[in-house]
């Protein structure tokens, strides 16, 4: 062995340099084209005034941020509820016990129906329908029913994700656990579910990001959260910039979330796995 770089290292270094050059050049070309071409479109000036007005942005941003706090609260409420509900649904759906057949049938119907209705329709149906039942004042709160709607809809989706995770754990794991004398419940909680949740990390994260955005749909039944506040500001300034500002606020939450999930998953793989194929 010589002390200098090996043949392979030299090759990989050259390759890396080449990919870097290609990536840089193509990025410059694409971004440059956008910067040059978009302003050349006939309506650009009007669009810039309507969507990218600096003064409107600065004025409405703090208000939007305050309104966004409500979205965050709804999110923090509904996420654990969705996890609990969907885990129960998935477990009930997977049960083989004949005594639980009615529950299993209900779970299947629940999942089919609630996954089949667009969230926005569900928000209307429940948001306007349930308060009309004439419940006492405290219950006529659009916040509560908005959260309930999200939990209903998302628990149906998430239950199916969890179920696919449970199914993906090989039967031999169950055999190993049962041969030690574990009950089926112990097997589920200590062997199957921990592995299932590791596998469904990415789709769960996807659903979570989706939920973060769909929280805004609750605005349709009344609460002044970020989307509604943006609508109010849009009307006030006769300008669409508040929508752009609201989008940026959403991105500030969703992008770090996804990155964090990717990082956690990669770390998990490094810790328990041997090697990964590049």
């Amino acid at each position, binding site marked *: 062995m010589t002390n200098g770089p090996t043949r392979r290292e030299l090759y990989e270094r050259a390759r890396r340099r080449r990919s870097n050059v290609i990536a840089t050049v193509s990025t410059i070309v694409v971004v440059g084209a956008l910067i040059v071409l978009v302003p050349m479109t006939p309506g650009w000036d009007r669009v810039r005034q309507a969507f990218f007005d600096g003064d409107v942005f600065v004025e409405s941003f703090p208000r939007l941020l305050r309104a966004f706090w409500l979205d965050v609260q709804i999110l923090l409420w509904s996420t654990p509820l969705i996890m609990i509900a969907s885990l129960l649904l998935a477990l009930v759906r997977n049960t083989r016990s004949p005594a639980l057949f009615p529950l299993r049938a209900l779970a299947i119907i629940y999942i089919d129906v609630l996954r089949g209705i667009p969230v926005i329709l569900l928000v209307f149906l429940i948001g306007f329908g349930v308060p009309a039942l004439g419940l006492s004042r405290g219950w006529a709160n659009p916040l509560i029913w908005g959260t309930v709607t999200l939990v209903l809809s998302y628990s149906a989706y998430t239950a199916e994700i969890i179920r696919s995770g449970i199914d993906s754990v090989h039967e031999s794991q169950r055999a*190993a656990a049962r041969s030690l*004398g*574990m009950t089926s419940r112990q097997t589920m909680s200590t062997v199957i579910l921990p592995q299932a949740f590791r596998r469904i990390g990415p789709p769960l994260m996807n659903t979570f990001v989706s939920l973060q955005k769909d929280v805004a749909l609750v605005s349709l039944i009344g609460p002044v959260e970020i989307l509604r506040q943006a609508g109010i500001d849009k009307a006030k300034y006769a300008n669409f910039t508040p929508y752009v500002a609201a989008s940026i606020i959403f991105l500030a939450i969703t992008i770090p979330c996804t990155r964090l999930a990717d990082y956690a998953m990669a770390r998990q793989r490094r810790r328990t796995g041997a090697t990964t194929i590049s």
Partner: protein
Amino acid sequence: MSESTDAESSDAEPSTRPLKLQLRGVYKSFGTTTVLDGIDLDVAQGDVITLIGSSGSGKSTLLRCANLLEPIDDGVLLFDGVDIAEPGLDPDPIRRRIGMVFQSFNLFPHMTVTDNVAIGPRKVLGVPKAIARANGLELLTRLGLADRADAYPDQLSGGQQQRVAIARSLAMNPEVMLLDEITSALDPELVGEVLDVVRDLKRDGMTMLFATHEMAFAKEISDRVCFLHQGRILEEGTPDLIFGTPSEPRTQEFLQRVIDAGRL
């Protein structure tokens, strides 16, 4: 008992030791395929019985049935004289007394080696975590795996994984061990380290039912060898008898194939 310990393997009277496991007319089918077709087998305390036969002869199914992982369709399974094939019987208290080691290890990939070994006693016997882990570490040390205690299964070699699987099973202090082709998934050079563990277990007096393709090892370690063919025990006897002067033509045929393949 009159015989010396060395002679015990060849001509011990099974009746002098209590019977651990008795199979009587055990029948099992998957759909229309009959897998076990009337199995009779006695396993006495301390017996090492190997099951040989080609793939699909029913060796694995026999072991899985003995551990109630598969319910049998007909027949009787006596464990310490109690019929454990009784439909509706809670299998968990029985399984914890019977250890099983699988061909594909089946370690829990999300737990460290120590946790794999400690999880059974912790969950099933209610042993406190610290004690279960300490006992597990002791067991791992005995099997030469102390330095891998904090590793995850995927970071181990096949032979190490299988030794961990044996440790996981031993941690429950089983009365009988069922070994299901435990070296079949291993590279040839790793088979030895796993078989050494089985030798140690025999020395400690463990009762074992061992399905295997390692004929030389079966010859060495068995008190009795059973040749299975199409779900039946066609021939049963001491290793000398089965490997030396088998009377069944099908046994002779099978052994000839094994010899031709250079495995005996």
